[in-house]
């Protein structure tokens, strides 16, 4: 076959364009931004916020209405896929930031946020009342937004004698009764794995899983799928939030579903918000952070997010009161997690295989 000049030309052109776009995409070096102190004085008319896809519409509306009412500011709240995708987006845009603020990352992202320098610190004025353990970053790169505990949920109709302790979970009577969420693809799954490491230590957690694997029916990729299987009755236990049963109590009037807390301790997940480094609408971003920690906003958290509000002044709905008591929050140091998680995950996969 004869190769024409046109063919050669297009091939060369394509190659050059591809190379050029690759260079463009990467960006070179690290951008220097105008000092936040200067930007904060500037009054602007918009605010761009990133969050994850499942942020409730009511919370979005609340933010949009608040800014429109109070400051006449247009808020664009973009709900990107999953939490990891939100982070990736911020990371890829770090030299030319689009967003001013982000809502919905959790404490496990802190080490990366620091290393990649994606956020600017800001300390809102009204955090005095917040429980200290929720203030996960003392430099205030992030502030808490809501929180919850990762626990085992069970279906009271399918399981009459629920397990009472971690050891009890290993009982053969629970064979194929547990739906795990994949720690590699799901945040609650990841935190549940961390909870077992916190409970049994780095030396002991694999032994737990080795024994527990027979009781695991399957490992779902996301919370939606796993929780779907659970409510479809495929297995009576699932990894979820300690607050999940509150949904069924509130909206379906059933107390069929419950959360399990062993020894009054549960793994804490704090969702956070922060201001993007180099934010053009820094002043509005600060207002957003202030609004998020305010009582007015926090009042809406329980029944929209089905999570706990960080503001102690909020009265919890009845559905939330019925859950088990938690005296002690468990967490692993985020830096330690960051350093070891890949190894832990690989070891866990080897055991579960």
């Amino acid at each position, binding site marked *: 076959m004869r190769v024409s000049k046109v063919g050669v030309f297009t091939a060369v052109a394509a190659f050059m364009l591809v190379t050029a776009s690759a260079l463009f995409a990467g960006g070179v070096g690290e951008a220097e931004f105008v000092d936040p102190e200067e930007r904060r004085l500037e009054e602007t008319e918009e605010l761009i916020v990133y969050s994850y896809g*499942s942020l409730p519409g009511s919370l979005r509306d609340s933010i949009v209405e608040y800014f429109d009412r109070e400051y006449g500011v247009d808020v664009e709240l973009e709900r990107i896929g999953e939490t990891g995708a939100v982070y990736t987006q911020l990371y890829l845009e770090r030299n030319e930031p689009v967003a001013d603020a982000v809502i919905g990352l959790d404490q496990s992202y802190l080490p990366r946020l620091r290393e990649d320098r994606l956020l600017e610190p800001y300390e809102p004025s009204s955090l005095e009342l917040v429980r200290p353990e929720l203030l996960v970053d003392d430099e205030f790169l992030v502030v808490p937004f809501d929180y919850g505990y990762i626990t085992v949920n069970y279906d009271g109709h399918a399981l009459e004698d629920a397990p009472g302790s971690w050891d009890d979970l290993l009982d053969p009577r629970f064979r194929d009764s547990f739906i795990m969420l994949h720690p590699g693809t799901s945040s609650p799954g990841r935190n549940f794995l961390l909870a077992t490491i916190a409970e049994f230590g780095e030396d002991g957690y694999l032994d737990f899983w080795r024994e527990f694997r027979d009781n695991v029916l399957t490992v779902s990729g996301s919370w939606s799928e796993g929780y779907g299987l659970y409510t479809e*009755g495929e297995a009576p236990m699932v990894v979820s939030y300690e607050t999940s049963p509150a949904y069924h109590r509130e909206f379906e009037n059933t107390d069929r579903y419950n959360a399990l807390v062993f020894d009054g301790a549960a793994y804490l997940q704090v969702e956070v918000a922060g201001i993007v480094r180099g934010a053009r609408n820094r002043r509005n971003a600060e207002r957003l952070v202030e609004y998020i920690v305010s009582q007015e906003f926090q009042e809406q958290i329980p029944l929209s997010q089905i999570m706990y509000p960080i503001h102690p002044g909020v009265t919890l709905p009845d559905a939330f009161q019925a859950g088990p008591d938690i005296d002690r929050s468990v967490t692993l140091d985020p830096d330690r997690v960051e350093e070891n998680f890949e190894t832990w995950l690989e070891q866990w996969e080897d055991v579960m295989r």
Partner: protein
Amino acid sequence: MGRRDALRSGAPYLIAAVFVLLTVPPVLTVLGAGALERGASAWLEEARRVLAQTGTWRSVRFSVIQAVVSAALSIAIALPGAYFLSHIRFAGRRLVQSVSLLPFVLPSLIVILAIISFYGRSGVLNQLLGTRFAFVYSAGGIILAHVLFNISIALRMISAAWMQVDQRLREVSLSLGEGNLRRVLRLHLPLLLPAILNAATVIFLYCFVSFGVVLVFGGVRFATLEVRIYQAMFMNLNLSAAGALALLQLAVCGVAVFAAHRLAARRLAVATRGRRFVMRSGREISWITTVICYSYWVALGVFLFTPLASIALRAFHRNGRWSTAAFRSLIAGSIGDRDIHQIIRADFFELVTTSLAIAGLCAAVTTAAGFIAARAVRGRKVPWLDTLTMAPLAISGVTFSLGLRLLWFGIIPGPVLIIVAQGVMAFPLVFRILRTAMEGVPLRYTETAKSLGAGTLFRVRTLEIPVLWRSILNAYAFGFALSLADFTAVLTIGRGAIVTFPIAMYRLIGFQSFDVALALGVWYIIVVAAAFVAIDLTSHAREKEGL
């Protein structure tokens, strides 16, 4: 050499260039960031580390095995169906053709839930048998789901090719006294091999990059490469590792596609010269064939639709009791005291129009692009281009959509970007369908029209479109289906501002309103089924004109 010849010989390069420009920059934006950030040597170091992990190769092996088995099974099950569809004019033929596409348009989450509600431990089947088999949570479950998803590809692609086998070849074989079965095995299968390999390649790729299905049914035991890419990218936030794994995935898929091409290229394309194939109908069909034919469709129908039916029934349950509460909720627009609009951010009418408009446009654009591309390389063997155009199937949709958004947002409006993203994802299938069909039409038709003075546009309008009408609609239907079922591109690019059916369903499920999500799913199925029947009716209306 004339100008036209130069254009013609340049066409594959031009198509490749456009294609590469559309796909590579977005992917590089995301995956190449790792390399540019940390420098090439650090990237290579990371790539070496990832490729040295036994888990990586375990995933490759498992991905290949399950994809091969899924493709082989889909085709084996679809073959008799493709025979009946192409050879026998039985009652309900249209219906079968329209409806077999349905599993394909459902968001994978719905299909997964459907399979579980039927085959699951507490599913309908186990309840009927009074057992609690957990067979779906195994490689078996993965393959079951994949076959369910992909059987319609095999049915459509193979039956379309089978209709083009020269009637005279059949007659020769009949005159040689070959029995039906032997004729199928010795004459038809070899002739159909390119079409079969074509379908197998597409199914292989869909299964190879499968994500949700594999995680739910396979758990950790059976993780595909795609799962590891996702993990590296969104959980470990390691773009270098994700890039290396994505390259590995692309390489494995490339090898598979190229091998299939080589295998198919050794065979002649389906012989289409000669007399038009006449489908048997009425008295020409023996009673035994009729019985086998209908039994087959009933069995396939049970296989494909009982899970969907069982999940539809599930929409009529609330708290373990029969109830139309979910549908009432949808109509009333609230669940308990929660406004459904707050959850899905769109009313029903908006949902239908947005979904159909995006899917309709996307399918139209993709079909047109596929038609132009297939036409430009018509009558030529360009295996490298055929391989290249399959690449989107081996690229993760999230990565691609994210890159597209990063590169073009603000320059190109969101809905257009969504259509581009979905279009690129649907292109491989659409292009293959059109290319195969176009190669089946003798060039002499075009030449005759040329000698009668017909210019390009006139030929396309009066000759090529009418003659290829069935395949064009086929391609359109797949483009439409893929766009409708898409969740990733709409979410990643639309960022919640654009709501289609799958997004609405995921949102409802995210708020634990399963029954309402499924009730919406039932409406969705009704809307989609109506759209497909409309598409296929158009095809049959044209067919009556003598095609």
